[in-house]
Structures are given as structure tokens and as C-alpha cells.
């Protein structure tokens, strides 16, 4: 039986690495989250899905402490992220890696230097060791041969793979993927799916994948959350999500053009507007 907004997927405390409790967040009076609860199980791949504009990326920024919630708590391994000072937050972020939608590679550095960047910033490792570590990470994503290319010379899929190598450079506990499949051709998408699965299994990471590619996520993630209307609309395995009774979940999972998320943006009456000539 699928879980609902009031009872997200159960996970015991020891199995949970990230827990969001009664999260409220709004921007310029627009409510993004109103009582969101979710738990990310340790060592597994969790998908966070939802229609565009539901605040999936915002949720990631709240989890990573880039934004502070209006109320509620975000616990990372029992630590309240929103109560941390900048220095403590930066220390915590060394345990997280994040893959941004466009890769967010530093454009004034080549691929090698991008991957070496966190190592150079946080360690005093000798150059020979940094070189070996970087080449190892690049080999893992299949881009050792592109080490001296600049970000402007990479395709979208390659940029994301480099960003993945960079995110892995400091061996984080959690890897967060923000829309990793957007705008990729099927081959690149397949590569990213394989890498996410490999990283998770080989390194024992916890992965959070934010996306609205239901088919890709169904083959990749262990569990999923669907966010809509500022709350968790459904949570559980993909089989449970597909059988969920909620209309919004049904519309989202099956990609229906109309439903609780309407095809038409709210507007005055069509005929009245045409007849009266109002703008």
C-alpha cells in the first residue's frame, strides 16, 4: 500500500540519513512547502519527483543548507542543517556531493583542474597523488581522455559526467543529482543512469535523484517521493506509486496532459474574454 502525505515511507532512525520534518518554505508570499515530511534511507537511491515548479530543486537547496526554511527541520545524520553556522555547514557539506543540472563546471579551468578543485581546496596532498586521484575519478566516468578539454568543448552529457567525477572527488556520503537526465540524448542518459547505479553500489553512497523522468527513475531508484501542492503526495516503491489512488500521482506517473495539474493556466472565462475584448 502506498504511503500518503501524512505518512511518508517509513524508515527506522538508524537507516535514515536525511530526514525532513514539517518543512514550511515560501518565497515572496508564494508557498512552496507547507508541512513537507520525507526520509532518505541510507545507502539507497531515492527519487524525488513532481510536476515542474513544485520546488524539487528548492528542496535540494534546503537539504544542503543553501536556503533556510521558514519553519520545520532538515536533519542530516541527526544534525539540524538550518541551525548550523557557515563554518559548520561547510564542514557538513564535505559529506555531500551535488550534481547540478548543467554540471556547473568552473569554466576557467579544464576538466582535470575541475576535478582536482575540491582536492586542492581541502587537502594538502602532493601533486602526484592529486593527479592519480583525478585520473581515477575520470576513468570511472569514462573521461580520462578528456582531461585537458575545457568545459566549453564538452557535450551536455560529458559535462555532467565530469561534474559527477568532481562530486565524487572527496568521497562524500551522499550524492545529490538535480535533474541529471534533462536535455540528454538516449546514449548519454544511459551512461548517467549506469554511473548513478555504479556509484551507489560500488561506493556505498546514498543517492538522491531529483527528476521528472519517471521511466528512467523507475529503472534506477529504490524508492520514490512525489511532491505536489507543497507536500509529499505519495511515497514508496515505483510499483506502489503506480498503483496509488491519488489523482495527481496518477496524472504524473502516466504523463496525462490534463488533471489536477490543468492544461490551461488559470484565466478568465474564454468566451467572455473574447466577446468583451478585455486584455
Amino acid at each position, binding site marked *: 500500500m502506498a504511503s500518503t502525505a501524512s505518512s511518508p515511507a517509513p524508515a527506522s532512525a538508524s537507516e535514515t540519513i536525511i530526514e525532513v520534518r514539517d518543512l514550511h518554505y515560501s518565497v515572496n508570499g508564494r508557498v512552496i512547502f507547507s508541512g513537507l515530511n520525507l526520509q532518505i534511507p541510507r545507502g539507497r537511491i531515492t527519487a524525488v519527483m513532481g510536476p515542474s515548479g513544485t520546488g524539487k530543486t528548492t528542496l535540494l537547496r534546503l537539504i544542503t543548507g543553501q536556503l533556510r526554511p521558514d519553519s520545520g527541520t532538515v536533519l542530516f545524520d541527526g544534525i539540524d542543517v538550518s541551525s548550523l553556522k557557515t563554518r559548520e555547514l*561547510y564542514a557538513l*557539506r564535505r559529506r*555531500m556531493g*551535488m550534481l547540478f543540472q*548543467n554540471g556547473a563546471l*568552473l569554466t576557467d579551468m579544464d576538466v582535470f583542474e575541475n576535478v582536482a578543485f575540491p582536492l586542492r*581546496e581541502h587537502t594538502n596532498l602532493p601533486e602526484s597523488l592529486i593527479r592519480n586521484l583525478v585520473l581515477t575519478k575520470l576513468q570511472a566516468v569514462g573521461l580520462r581522455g578528456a582531461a585537458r578539454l575545457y568545459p566549453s568543448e564538452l557535450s551536455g552529457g560529458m559535462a555532467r559526467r565530469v561534474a559527477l567525477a568532481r562530486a565524487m572527488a572527496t568521497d562524500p556520503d551522499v550524492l545529490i543529482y538535480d535533474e541529471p537526465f534533462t536535455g540528454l540524448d538516449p546514449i548519454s542518459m544511459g551512461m548517467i543512469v549506469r554511473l548513478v547505479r555504479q556509484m551507489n553500489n560500488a561506493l556505498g553512497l546514498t543517492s538522491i535523484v531529483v527528476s521528472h523522468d519517471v521511466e528512467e527513475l523507475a529503472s534506477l531508484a529504490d524508492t520514490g517521493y512525489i511532491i505536489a501542492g507543497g507536500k509529499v503526495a505519495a511515497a514508496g516503491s515505483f510499483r506502489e506509486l503506480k498503483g496509488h489512488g491519488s489523482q495527481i500521482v496518477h496524472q504524473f506517473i502516466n504523463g496525462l496532459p490534463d488533471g489536477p495539474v490543468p492544461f490551461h493556466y488559470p484565466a478568465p472565462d474564454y468566451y467572455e474574454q473574447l466577446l468583451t475584448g478585455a486584455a
Partner: protein
Amino acid sequence: MRLLGELTDNLRNFVATVGALSLFFGRVIAQTPRALMRPTLIIAQIHNAGALSLVIIMTCGLFVGMVLGLQGYDLLQRFGSEDALGTAAALALIKELGPVVTALLFAGRAGTALASEIGLMRATDQLSAMEMMAVDPLRRVVAPRFLGGVIAMPLLTVIFVAIGIFGVQLVGVQLFGVDAASFWSQMRSSVDVADVMEGVIKGCVFGVACSLIAVYEGYTALPTAEGVGRATTRTVVTSAVLTLILDYMLTALLL
């Protein structure tokens, strides 16, 4: 009544911006000691802000000097004082034109480059990525660029003044036949250390102001193409206005 409301809003926005800028300045200064421990980053930014501005600074310095030579000669020969051309031009360049024009050119060339670079880094999530890698962008990106600008600006001012004086000499001595010995000796006897210091102090203050405005505008730019464009425009306009206001205040203070 509506005018009063708009005036109040503008005043409130102005005070808020000044407050935010001061706070940002404090945060950048707080990161300066750690940024100084990575001199290679600062040297790269001195190259970006300084060395890459050299051609425009030298070209403009030469032509400003040559125009000063023309106008100065025309004015002084009316009183039969052409020999004072060297003194007049040197004082004008060292105390005023050098620092002010260099600051305006710096804002147009290096300031806009800084603002758009940092703004684009914001728009393409590069700054967020750094934060996620537990690297403070203020320390890694902003502070070295700010320091690079602050160091480059007085150096550019000195080069501008030197080339400017060469330009005055080119027109005054080589073209109009002002006596070279009088030109140089009068300049040397009239221009003292205090005059040079005034120019250097102005160069340093304008360097801080223009670099701060550029990195602030870039850092706080909206992460869109329009936002970066606006930040670049504001960098030039604010830097120019602030330079002229500061120039008046410093001149009044140092006279």
C-alpha cells in the same frame, strides 16, 4: 503625495543598497587575510585587471596628454608662459586626470569584465557548486578579484600619468617648440612629493571603490542574462559617479 512616496522609496532603497554594500565590503575584507595566502590567485587577477587593461590605459594616457599639451599650450601662450606647460600639465595629470580617467577606464574595461564574469558564474551555478564543495566563493572568487583590482589600479594610474606626460612633451616640446630644459626643470621644481601622494592616494581609493562595486554587482546579479547585463551597466555608472564624488571629497581633504 505620490512623489513623496516615490522619494521615500528611493531613499529607502539607497540606504539599503549602501548598507548591503558596506556589509559586503566587510565580508570581503574579512576574507582578505586568507586570500592573501594564495598569492597566485591574486597575481592572476592583477594580470586580468591590470595587464589586460594596459593597452587601453596607455593609448588613452597618450591622447589625453597630447590634448592637454594642445590646450595647455594654447592657453599659456596667451600669457607668454609656454614654459610653464610642463608644470601645469604634470600637476593636472598627477593630481586629477590620471587617477580619475584611469578609474573611469578601469570601470569600463576591468570592472565590467569582473562584474559579468562573477555574474555569469552565479547564473551558471558555479558559485553554488563551490558552496556545495564547501568552498566559500567570497574567499576563492571575490576576494582575489577585489585585491587584484585594488593593486592594479594605482599601478595603472602611474603608467597613465607617465604616458600622459610623454604625450604633453610630444606636443609641447616636439611640435610647438617649447624649450625642453624649461619644460622638464619647471616640472621637477614645482611638482613635489605631496602632489604625487595625492595622485597615489586617489588611485588607491578609486581602486577600492571601483573594484568593490564591480565584484558586488557581479555577486548580487540576478542569475539571468538580463540580470548580468544590468549588473554590468550598473558597474560602469555607479563606479563613474562614485569616482567623481570621491574625487571632490578627496581633493577638498588633501588640498
